[in-house]
């Protein structure tokens, strides 16, 4: 069975890869497609069923495996782009506001690693935040010596806006050590929080 590995690919790439692979195999042969996000999986499934194919789906770990038998040719002209649907419309305005450098109340060393694990998992979350705000001791996560700096830089590069409280940087005398994000003030931060469709306080 031919395997299409579309992990890490964003729409419309998995659709294009699937369409191309289907064109290459013989009728009655089958194809396995690996996809690592639910939106792409749904888009590819819809594309295939709309074109008269039967799709079976399996989730192994974090990876969706789609199995499809080729029952006919998909015309070269079949559109793929219009199957790119962004599914997080309900959460398109998600904001995460870090108010401290520890996650939860309790033992400090535990709060510290829980926070690292939380931040390091954000790039894999199905609903990406539009903005992330850092307040009070939360600003320590954004400094050059922060152990989650690489992850925050990665999020910023992927389009997530990172706002860091300027008053807080000033209070802790850490302005020179900022490693990621934009220095922001209460007006911008309040605007972000009040216009968000939902705010997560870790």
């Amino acid at each position, binding site marked *: 069975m031919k395997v299409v590995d579309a*992990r890490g690919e964003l729409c419309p790439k998995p659709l294009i890869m699937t369409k191309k692979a289907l064109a290459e195999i013989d009728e009655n042969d089958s194809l396995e497609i690996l996809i690592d996000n639910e939106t792409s999986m749904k888009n590819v499934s819809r594309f295939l069923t709309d074109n008269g194919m039967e799709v079976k789906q399996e989730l192994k770990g*974090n*990876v969706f495996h789609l199995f499809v038998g080729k029952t006919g040719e998909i015309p070269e002209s079949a559109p793929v782009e219009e199957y790119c649907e962004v599914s997080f419309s309900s959460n398109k305005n998600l904001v995460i506001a870090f108010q401290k450098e520890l996650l939860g109340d309790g033992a400090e060393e*535990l709060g510290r*690693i829980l926070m*690292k*694990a939380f931040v*390091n*998992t954000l790039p*894999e979350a199905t609903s990406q935040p539009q903005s992330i705000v850092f307040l009070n001791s939360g600003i320590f996560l954004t400094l050059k010596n922060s152990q989650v700096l690489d992850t925050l830089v990665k999020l910023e590069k992927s389009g997530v806006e990172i706002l860091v409280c300027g008053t807080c940087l000033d209070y802790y005398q850490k302005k020179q050590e900022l490693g990621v994000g934009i220095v922001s003030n209460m007006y911008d931060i309040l605007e972000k929080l009040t216009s968000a469709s939902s705010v997560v306080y870790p």
Partner: protein
Amino acid sequence: MNYTVLTFQATHYVLKAEKILLEKGFKFDIIPTPKDISSDCGMSIRFDPEITRNDSVAETLKLINIDFNIHEVWMK
């Protein structure tokens, strides 16, 4: 990309391992244990095998007598 993930038997071992790896200047992340490795609500250590060598991490952790399991995991 492919990562090496180290899992431990208790959160306290993760804390001890983190401490010594930081002291020795290793580059790694603390992450929740991936669901396909274990359903426990555990913490793990993740590093990029291209940057950090498995055997030098293993040697360092031997110094403090900590048992761990090594996994190869694909992550975004």
